[in-house]
């Protein structure tokens, strides 16, 4: 038996991602969820603008790309036009939490029956590591060479905490791709976010903390460590909203 391999929902293409970038792990988890639910023939993915813009090369699915940040609006149209289709967006933090904030918040507020995979790596990866709304206080980026300054730039947007305040969303969770334990939890959360849509439950968003070794200026290994030491304490992992659960479990 092959225990771990490339999911069927992924193509054989080699990704363009930098060595050790956890976008690749998150792609695999999305593919595994699609395999597990047997929805490959009826799933459409929407790639963002960002490093994942080429995601259409990596999934054995119908794929499209939205203008920067507009993936939830495109997903809304696709889903409403053909409710049997399973529709997901795959969006970075610049895409979703900056230019596309309005589309994400309103899709959540409308309770659209879509799945959003939100990849938070605390920078604009594709364009060279500029500060994102999600960059940590004090974080050194291309555009904050002395560290993100609260007085000048304000403080980060915590997407899960914010969206969990809305009444309509079904499931909002934050996971991380930095360790065996956390990747296993991420796998469960992503599968649940897709299953919710199959069951018609409504809007599900999983925020996955991800690394950008290249723009963080760290080795892949040190990037995982920085996520544990700096990123996770600021962005606590857990389920922020789950309308199907009796008790919310924040592990």
């Amino acid at each position: 038996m092959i225990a771990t391999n490339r999911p069927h929902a992924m193509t054989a293409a080699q990704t363009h991602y930098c060595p050790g970038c956890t976008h690749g792990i998150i792609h695999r988890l999305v593919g595994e969820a699609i395999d597990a639910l047997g929805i490959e023939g009826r799933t459409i993915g929407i790639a963002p603008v960002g490093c994942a813009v080429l995601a259409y090369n990596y999934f054995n699915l119908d794929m499209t790309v939205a203008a920067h940040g507009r993936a939830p609006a495109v997903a809304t149209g696709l889903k409403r036009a053909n409710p049997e289709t399973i529709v997901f967006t795959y969006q970075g933090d610049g895409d979703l939490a900056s230019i596309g904030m309005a589309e994400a918040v309103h899709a959540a507020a409308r309770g659209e029956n879509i799945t959003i995979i939100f990849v938070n790596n605390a920078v604009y990866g594709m364009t060279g590591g500029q500060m994102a709304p999600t960059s940590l206080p004090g974080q050194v980026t291309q555009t904050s060479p002395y560290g993100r300054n609260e007085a000048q730039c304000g403080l980060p947007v915590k997407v899960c905490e914010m969206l969990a305040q809305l009444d309509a969303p079904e499931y909002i969770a934050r996971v991380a791709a930095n360790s065996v334990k956390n990747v296993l939890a991420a796998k469960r959360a992503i599968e649940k976010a897709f299953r919710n849509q199959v069951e018609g439950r409504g809007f599900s968003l999983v925020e996955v903390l991800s690394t950008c070794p290249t723009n963080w200026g760290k080795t892949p290994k040190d990037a995982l460590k920085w996520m544990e030491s700096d990123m996770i304490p600021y962005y606590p992992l857990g389920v922020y909203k789950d309308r199907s659960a009796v008790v919310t479990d924040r592990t």
Partner: protein
Amino acid sequence: MAKLTIQAENCKGCGLCVDACPKKILRIDADVINHKGHAPAQMTDESRCTGCGFCALMCPDCVITLER
């Protein structure tokens, strides 16, 4: 017994599998370079592999296949 295959030509040499392995039997050999220009991960002692799959779980590039 577990059988682990590393598709060395597709490996980016990131080393995440090396760190994830509880048995510390994977390594990056800097003297070997694949067609991408990366030094791929290698198995050093297959007899100690438990088949836990941690390496494959942490591989961003689906390079590791595990049969058990």
